[in-house]
């Protein structure tokens, strides 16, 4: 006998269902693009649908993976006929979740801060190591590069750019002395390095958006209208 998940998968794999899916996706893509003309009911429909579907999906996904799989199944495996020993510690997480919901009752809403404190403390503890190693130590390490030997001339030029860029940018943020004379010149060069960095970041963002747009155009012309030749793979 097929489970509900298999039955849904069978329906979704049906060619007719896939065609309907492509048409719905094409309609929603065009509805979002219609904002380029002006704000309109189609765009509003698409954004409200997105919010509703996201909230519904996130809730269902959280209930299934966090509450059911991680808490109930692990705490009461025998009750559910699943192999494994019960781990009642998962119920502590559930209790904290319920305490978080106490925020909705004004008289005891202060108790929700316990759960929030736990979440923040745990997150900070877990992430602090990875954040320091990737954002501080790794960057300092990448700045300590050979300047006079140990690479091709092009690599040495590259290393000098990194060295001067870091030095000048740090001087720009050094406010203990007035930016005049040599210090002013170095800090001015620091601004240029910062501007080039911001410009590259902005350009990269635009490029990412353009690639997303190309993806949608490929979808509309290929999957929906079949006006593109099939790729060789």
């Amino acid at each position, binding site marked *: 006998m097929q489970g509900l998940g298999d039955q849904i998968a069978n329906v979704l794999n049906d060619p007719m269902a896939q065609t309907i899916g492509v048409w719905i996706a094409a309609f929603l893509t065009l509805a979002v693009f219609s904002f380029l003309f002006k*704000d309109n009911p189609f765009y509003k429909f698409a954004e409200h649908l997105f919010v509703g579907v996201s*909230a519904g999906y996130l809730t269902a996904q959280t209930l299934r993976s966090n509450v059911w799989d991680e808490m109930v199944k692990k705490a009461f495996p025998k009750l559910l006929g699943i192999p494994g020993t019960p781990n009642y510690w998962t119920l502590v997480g559930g209790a904290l979740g319920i305490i978080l919901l106490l925020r909705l009752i004004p008289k005891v809403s202060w108790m929700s801060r316990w759960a*929030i404190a736990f979440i923040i403390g745990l997150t900070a503890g877990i992430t602090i190591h990875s954040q320091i190693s990737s954002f501080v130590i790794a960057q300092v390490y990448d700045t300590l590069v050979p300047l006079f030997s140990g690479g091709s001339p092009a690599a040495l030029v590259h290393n000098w750019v990194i060295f001067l860029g870091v030095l000048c940018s740090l001087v720009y943020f050094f406010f203990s002395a007035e930016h005049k004379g040599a210090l002013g010149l170095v800090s001015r060069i620091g601004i240029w390095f910062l501007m080039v960095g911001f410009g590259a970041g902005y350009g990269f963002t635009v490029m990412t958006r353009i690639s997303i747009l190309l993806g949608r155009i490929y979808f509309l012309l290929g999957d929906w209208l079949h006006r593109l030749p099939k790729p060789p793979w």
Partner: protein
Amino acid sequence: MVEQDEFLDLLASEIVKRRLASIVVLTLESLKPLSFLGSQALIFLEPFLGAFMTKPETYKKLIEILEDRDRLERLLERIEELERQR
């Protein structure tokens, strides 16, 4: 309505006072189509962020601005107006 306008004025003047007009206008203009999604994300995060807020009503007013694109437009106009007067 008057209260909302006052809040818009206050927000705009604080932005201009901190010399953030250009960056705020650029950010809001580029993210304007997604303002409704942003407001809904703020509603979703409200129970969590609320624990850190001393003035939850200000947060609600901010959500109301983001929810309504006309209000967001008024905020942008107000920022530009105050920036011209500087």
